[in-house]
């Protein structure tokens, strides 16, 4: 019995990481109706940027975020204004194709520069530190930190969206970019800021990913898939839905792995299909039609 509780608990914590993957994707889609196929590769790119910073300066992975976050944010802003904004329009296909191509470019550039070797960001003994909840039940400190970070970030971003002038500009631009311009909102700039914000989350997710598991240039697309499933299960009404989606995915994968190690990934996909069958619009759907 306790083993199952343990599986679920670890699954919830894993879900925090998936929610971090997914939140950036949800912001990008929510603000500019852009399906970013490169999202998973950006997470891996962030992990490699952190690796370079760590190896170059000798600081730990967490401290490296001081550099990785602004690098990714600026990269996101420039990419959005320079490459992605021109693809946006009534048709969803051009940005889809461009980010698909970009995904291949990022993967191959990383392969060219870093080779296909597996890499890891090391945080020493901290990595395996755990807290015993009961005699048979323990949670890792690091997974717990990831989960708490995800919750805090989602809370903060939800606050930005609901309470600040920038958040209103995000929502207004998402509703109607033409009328938003009549309010003095430069939609190109707002889109750039949304991508920058998404890549701040990607930077954090990338470092967490790199500490938690091995990574190499080819692992991006599967992170994208998890992120997608979390976003879709959550619905697009609220980022808390994205967190819930991530948790469902994490729990399903852990329970699957408990039944049979080969069943882990499949169990996540099955949970995704079940949620969609029951709630086609996700757990927290948008309340309005558009």
């Amino acid at each position, binding site marked *: 019995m306790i083993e199952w509780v343990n599986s679920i608990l670890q699954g919830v914590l894993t879900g925090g990481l998936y929610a971090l993957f997914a939140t950036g994707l949800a912001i990008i889609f929510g603000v500019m109706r852009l399906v970013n196929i490169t999202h998973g590769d950006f997470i891996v790119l962030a992990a490699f940027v952190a690796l370079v910073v760590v190896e170059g300066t000798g600081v730990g992975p967490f401290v490296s975020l001081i550099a990785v976050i602004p690098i990714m944010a600026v990269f996101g802003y420039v990419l959005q204004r320079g490459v992605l904004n021109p693809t946006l329009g009534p048709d969803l296909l051009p940005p889809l194709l461009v980010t698909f191509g970009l995904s291949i470019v990022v993967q191959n550039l990383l392969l060219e520069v870093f080779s296909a070797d597996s890499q890891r960001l090391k945080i020493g003994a901290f990595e395996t530190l755990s807290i015993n909840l009961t005699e048979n039940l323990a949670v890792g400190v690091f997974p717990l930190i990831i989960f708490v970070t995800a919750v805090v970030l989602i809370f903060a971003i939800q606050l930005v969206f609901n309470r600040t002038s920038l958040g209103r500009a995000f929502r207004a631009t998402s509703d109607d970019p033409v009328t938003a311009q*009549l309010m003095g909102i430069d939609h190109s700039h707002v889109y750039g800021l949304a991508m920058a914000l998404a890549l701040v989350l990607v930077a954090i997710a990338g470092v967490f990913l790199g500490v938690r598991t091995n990574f190499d240039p080819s692992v991006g697309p599967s992170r994208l898939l998890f992120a997608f499933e979390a976003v879709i299960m959550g619905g697009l009404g609220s980022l808390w839905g994205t967190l819930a989606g991530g948790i469902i995915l994490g729990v399903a994968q852990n329970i699957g792995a408990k039944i049979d190690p080969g069943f882990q990934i499949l169990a996540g996909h099955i949970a995704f299909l079940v949620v969609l069958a029951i709630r086609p619009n996700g757990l927290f759907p948008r309340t309005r039609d558009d």
Partner: protein
Amino acid sequence: MSLLAVRNLTAFYGDFQALFGIDFSLDEGETVAVIGANGAGKSTFLRSVTGLVKYAADEFSYDGRSIAGRKASDIPGLGIAMVPEGRKLFPSLSVEENLVIGGYDGRPGTWSLDRVYGMFPRLKERRDNPGTALSGGEQQMVAIGRALMANPKLLLCDELSLGLAPIIIKDIYESVPAIKAEGVSLLIVEQDINQALEVADRVYCFQEGRISLEGNPAQMSRDDIANAYLGKSQ
């Protein structure tokens, strides 16, 4: 001096030419109405002023400066605000947020949430509702309030009466004198000729992308207007 001066304005949508050499001027404090049938180019004219369509003109100046080719998002900061056709409230924003976002540019002036609520008390009761949950007339009030929050010198109103019951239209137009009293100049585009003629100091009639009649509404006969509006032979 004219607040808005336009000479020989032409505008295209692809191969389709919507405006053919419009000459237009609006003085500070003046209320000017633009009337005309559907497709006469009235909305295209407003979209030119707000920078939403590409156009060519010999002169396109506001407040003594050329604004030709300025980005749409730069225009509100200059003191030109727009009440768009069909209200175009932001569905994700509450009534109050819709009003607040009108002042996004932070242009200083006398308008505030309190003053807009003073002008349209019904909005205060519904401040936390989504903008689109309101009746058509109330939505139009939000759209006007949103534009006023930008503290404009020139307010552009596109089809204020569109889709509203006559009694509501009367309500909406009752707010116009109070806006004029603030020294705001108005450019009103209307299909409802009676409303337009009542509030306007001067009227332009558009017909198929050209100006067919211009002048003081008091000195125009119904026949003049009907001819200019519908394009009957003189």
